[in-house]
């Protein structure tokens, strides 16, 4: 039986403000609050809320409907700040138990290509947020922009993920079909789900394109294409950005009615919906898929050239993922540094610097040109990296730093144990209060010890 996995990505970039080089070292706030609020409100009102309302209705009306979502951490933060109703809606969808939430890097960045430790850290943090918000720990992962190669697959497998959602790029698949479950060539513990870009783009790119030969697209016709796929091709992964519904394809095109009609049409043709986890548990991998070079869902080339195609982008990338600095960022406990690090990594920042000829005119946010985007970004990176550098002395190696931090953490634990001891002793003391006032000695002794350890910790800092 054919199964459709309908997957939506929720990500919005954090817009950076105009940051001149003379602000370096003076101004540590990098964001354009007005533009962030405006764009998030616009997307939430014009796309996320109506689309999620529809999906929620569909879940309630049909218990066999299975949507899948993945949210980037930065998008969650922005939504919480400017459009919390979106998170509420997602939580309600999660409550129906029919939706699955995927893991992905917190920053929507290129960490998977730049720094493995950072990538792992980000995925863990995002998975934790998923658990907090929607009550489920992700079992399937997808990388930012579906960037994938064998190495990323094996890292994900190592982290315990059962499956990974990737692009069904033509140059990788060749004669193979994306409608099967494959396994990662470097680690067969993890299943690879391939996005069918043709069927996906039919909705998110071409739905209301009147010059398209299949216009207007109706749900029965669409499901008919899926039903017409050869026998045995049972897994149809359709993935898109959630804002395709409402932003790329306006609501006036009745795209919501189209989505709404899908389950009924599918049932008629004996096709069901499934989450990635269900698909992986039911379908065995037919064979390994080899991806030596990174691919993604971007551009015609489906590679990483949109972010790392020119020398400017590569320079920014090299500066951002400098090993020593990343180690420091991961080791430090400064929340602002951590947050800036997440926001600055987002692939959108790199995309604005592209100089590739684009079939669809690219939106560069508030930048005039690739050079403008690069200049602004490098100024910000300059300031950010300086802050990171200033946190610790140049001579300290990252390993030492980590050791010191563990030591501090251990001392903290020790203190906690001692505190408990004190309180139990105090409680005991109270029992004997009056009869034996002389037994205060241990309580007196502890505080002095505490200050000593604190001083030691501070000195090591």
């Amino acid at each position, binding site marked *: 039986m054919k199964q459709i996995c309908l997957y939506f990505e929720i990500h919005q970039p954090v817009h950076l403000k105009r940051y*001149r080089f*003379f602000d370096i070292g003076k101004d540590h706030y990098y964001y354009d609050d007005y533009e962030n609020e405006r764009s998030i409100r616009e997307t939430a009102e014009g796309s996320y809320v109506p689309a999620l309302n529809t999906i929620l209705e569909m879940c309630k009306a049909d218990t066999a409907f299975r949507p899948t979502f993945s949210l980037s951490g930065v998008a969650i933060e922005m939504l919480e700040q400017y459009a919390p109703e979106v998170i509420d809606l997602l939580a309600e969808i999660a409550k129906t138990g029919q939706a699955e939430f995927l893991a992905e890097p917190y920053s929507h960045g290129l960490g998977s290509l730049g720094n493995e430790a950072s990538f792992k850290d980000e995925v863990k943090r995002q998975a934790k947020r998923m658990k907090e918000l929607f009550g489920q720990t992700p079992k399937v992962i997808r990388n930012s922009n579906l960037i994938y190669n064998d190495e990323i697959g094996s890292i994900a497998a190592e982290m315990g993920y059962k499956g990974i959602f990737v692009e069904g790029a033509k140059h990788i698949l060749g004669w193979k079909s994306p409608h099967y479950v494959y396994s990662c060539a470097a680690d067969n513990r993890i299943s690879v789900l391939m996005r069918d870009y043709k069927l996906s783009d039919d909705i998110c790119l071409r739905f209301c394109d009147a010059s398209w030969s299949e216009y207007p697209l109706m749900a029965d016709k669409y499901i008919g294409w899926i039903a017409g796929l050869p026998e045995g091709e049972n897994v149809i992964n359709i993935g898109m950005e959630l804002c395709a519904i409402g932003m790329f394809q306006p609501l006036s095109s009745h795209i919501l009615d189209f989505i709404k009609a899908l389950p009924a049409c599918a049932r008629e043709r004996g096709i069901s919906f499934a989450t990635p986890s269900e698909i992986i548990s039911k379908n065995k991998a037919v064979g390994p898929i080899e991806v030596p070079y990174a691919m993604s869902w971007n551009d015609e080339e489906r590679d990483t050239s949109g972010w790392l195609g*020119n*020398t400017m982008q590569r*320079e920014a990338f090299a500066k951002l993922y400098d090993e020593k600095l990343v180690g420091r960022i991961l080791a430090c406990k400064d929340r602002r540094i951590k947050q800036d690090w997440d926001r600055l990594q987002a692939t959108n920042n790199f995309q604005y610097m592209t*100089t590739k000829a684009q079939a669809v005119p690219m939106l560069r946010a508030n930048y005039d040109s690739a*050079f403008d985007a*690069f200049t602004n970004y490098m100024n910000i990176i300059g300031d950010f990296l300086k802050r990171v550098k200033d946190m610790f002395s140049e001579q300290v190696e990252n390993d030492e730093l980590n050791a010191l931090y563990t030591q501090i953490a251990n001392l903290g634990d020790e203190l906690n144990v001692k505190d408990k001891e004190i309180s139990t002793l105090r409680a005991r003391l109270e029992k004997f209060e009056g009869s034996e006032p002389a037994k205060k000695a241990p309580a007196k002794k502890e505080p002095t010890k505490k200050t000593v350890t604190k001083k030691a910790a501070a000195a090591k800092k």
Partner: protein
Amino acid sequence: MKVLMFGWEFPPKIYGGLAVASYGITKGLSLQGDVETTFCMPKPCGDEEKFLKIVNMSQVPVVWRDVNYDWIKDRFVGHTAEDYYRFRDHLYADFNYLQGLDDMGCIGFAGGYPSNLHDEINNFSIIAGVLARSEQFDLIHAHDWLTFPAGVHAKMVSGKPLCIHVHATDFDRSRGKVNPTVYSIEKNGMDHADCIMCVSELTRQTVINQYHQDPRKCVAMHNAVYPLSQEYLDIVPNKTPGEKVVTYLGRITMQKGPEYFVEAAAKVLQRTRNIRFCMAGSGDMMNAMIQLAAERGIADRFHFPGFQRGKQVYEAYKNSDVFVMPSVSEPFGIAPLEAMQCGCPSIISKQSGCGEILDNVIKCDYWDIDAMADAMYSVCTNEGLYEYLRDEGIKEVDRITWEKVGLRIRECYNQLTSRGYFNNDDYLNAVKGIK
């Protein structure tokens, strides 16, 4: 196809950008093989390249003089004694009242831009009447306002279509405060023209809006550059390691916005000291700029090497890390293209016409000194940006050739000669293939 072309300058004698453009256009046309250009200019020096026919307007008679062939045959620079007698057969009025006639009945020109420019322009158009009567041609092409009256006169006499080339308007030169005499000459020329070629869309809009011309007969005809000669390619850059040089090169005058360059430089120098600024060229605002640099306290890092000529220009480009052209209003501006040829990244103002055909330059508003300073700093500190602009810039500028400009101009000529009028929309359709 025969073209009667009026121009004021032609290499090797160069007063400004007009000479270079005239050369490029005629060369581009000559490469097509079937375009015969007669280039009329006030005072050629005799060392011009021989791919076109040059008419020396200083030696075209306007008054009949009985002169002996043997006596005058060796005196001609440009055209020949035979041409002289042919011209003499086509005198059309009595100009004996004119002052400064020589023994051959010709009016002399000083050449360049003397103080009695308006007289020279008038004389130029008188002589154009003789030429228009004696020469056979299909079309008239006049460069810049100095030759517009001549073009209009030739059109009146011959009835052939007139194409005028606007290299600059008085609006660009004066920041909006136009000289009414110049404006009226420009406007008259445009009113009579069948096709107005503007060196950029920016100029085209000025022509349409300030001179009230029909947009259909205005066309944006961007300039190009000639590949660097081996001599210039071989210049070895002489750079100081660890120090960057930011260069301004051009006339130091209001139109070019030099004060914005100084202000931006002051901003950059507030943060870093390993960048030097160089303002090459001369002009009426030079002393004011020296004073301004001193006022901002950056004179130790700010240099004025003066007017650069010939090879010095290319040496300056090669030794620079960034070239800046902050023009307030630049019809085209060929300098950034030359800088890019030398591998020097350029920052130009959005008010520059050449920006319309360039992608690998940084563009900012001329008044936005923050953005300009930021761009200078960025190119100087980020190797990736510098390398990208350098490499892609050379590639890009190599694709901009006079040959293609020649083909585009030919398309305009064809429209004019085949049906007598010009339409920009048809032109745009026709030249889609020339990329």
